[in-house]
């Protein structure tokens, strides 16, 4: 035909698809910096609300700390989920993504990875600082940070399923929360539970291995489920 490039046989290639999505979404996130700070600020505010609500008794705060920090991380994750697909859906890019020769699950994995790097990773870095407000000890801080490091990507992965199912719906955000929070419950239990276990003198590896296993399972299953949901939404 003309001087267009010949078509390489790329159908089914996973990593170039992931790379395309990560690179594009990170570039977009960096160029609209205002959005990035919001989730972090939200996390900090929610965490600060709890002592204001229950009082500053150090023993009480120590007991509440792990749970509060994890619940706030869940809520911050929920807040950021619509960003994952909504913009692409609105401007027609999601259609082009679905029609790409790269596997849709691979492209979605890339988007989720970029999403986590922009929203979840900063949260993991901020959490030890906020945990100091609740009087957590050093080993508990480590358990918390490592747990969030393993847990927040899982939250992004599982949340992507809900985000894809509720694409373009009026009910949007609250419906997304209703659908996604039951999926989050095991992560919350094991994440906060790992810190509790450390406090009780148990080894931290137990809870962390479960979180790691959950992450692996989500890495395999969530992109596939999200891809199915995206195709359904585009129908």
């Amino acid at each position, binding site marked *: 035909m003309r001087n267009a490039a010949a078509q390489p046989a790329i159908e089914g290639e996973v990593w170039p698809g992931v790379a395309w999505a990560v690179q594009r979404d990170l570039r977009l996130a960096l160029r609209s910096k205002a959005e990035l700070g919001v989730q972090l600020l939200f996390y900090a505010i929610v965490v600060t609300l709890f002592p204001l609500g229950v009082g500053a008794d150090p023993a009480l705060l120590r007991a509440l700390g792990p749970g509060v920090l994890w619940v706030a991380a869940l809520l911050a994750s929920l807040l950021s989920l619509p960003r994952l697909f909504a913009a692409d859906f609105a401007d027609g890019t999601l259609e082009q993504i679905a029609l790409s020769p790269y596997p849709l699950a691979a492209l979605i994995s890339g988007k989720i990875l970029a999403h986590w790097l922009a929203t979840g990773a900063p949260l993991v870095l901020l959490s030890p600082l906020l945990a100091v407000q609740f009087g957590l000890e050093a080993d508990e801080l480590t358990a918390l940070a490592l747990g969030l490091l393993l847990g927040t990507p899982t939250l992004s992965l599982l949340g992507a*399923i809900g985000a894809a*199912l*509720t694409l373009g*719906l*009026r*009910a949007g955000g609250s*419906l997304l929360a*209703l*659908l996604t*929070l*039951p*999926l989050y*419950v*095991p992560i919350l*239990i*094991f994440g906060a*539970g790992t810190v*509790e*276990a450390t406090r*009780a003198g148990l080894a931290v590896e137990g809870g962390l291995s479960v979180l790691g296993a959950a992450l692996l399972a989500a890495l395999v*299953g969530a992109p596939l*489920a999200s891809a*199915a*949901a995206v195709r*359904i*939404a585009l*129908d």
Partner: protein
Amino acid sequence: MFRSINWFKFASPASFYPVAGHLIPWFAVPAALLAAVGLWLGLVVAPTDAQQGDAYRIIFIHVPAAWMSMFLYLVMAAWCAASLTFNARLASMMAQALAPTGAMFTVVALWTGALWGRPAWGTYWAWDARMTSELILLFLYLGYMALRHAIDEPRRADRASAVLALVGAINVPIIYFSVRWWNTLHQGATVSLTSAPKMASIMLVAMLLMSFAAWFYAIAVTLIRVRAIILERERRTTWAGDLAGAAR
């Protein structure tokens, strides 16, 4: 004999509608009878428990309701899987019909569980694995119904809610085991709703009868509901129009 019936013919809503209508009394009547006998056995005949007095009798409603709530979710998920695999509208309609009944049984199980908890262990709500999983199951049912309701386009609603139901089906056992672990960690909930009173055989019979009654009730109600769903979704077809015309 089976080969001469084209079973797939019944996969069309139009053919299934009259079949469902004929089946309803075959489930509704036995359900009422079984419930009557089961309740009589459970509330009147079964002996008073030594520890829990007469309050324990609520298990004759609580346990069948809990079993049904979980069983119906699995059946709903199976219909959802069928609808995605075979692209069959009727399978989606069956799932849609099951959800409200499943949700109802879940609410009944939670309510009766709380009512039982108070006299038995002094607290309306104990965060044990079963009751917590039951609560999450209620959220799953409500989420399924909410998602269906939020999507206007029927085919997208069918397929999206099917994906949701299947994801939820995987989630329920995971939640159950994680809450069990959580309980061992927190040492709090030593109560367990498995500590039902030692079962005299008459109690077992009553419970089984009530379970079958609940099952037949669920089938009857689901068939009634699916007929209404079929009529609503197929309202523009000629057979539905003929039905409405004949009714006038």
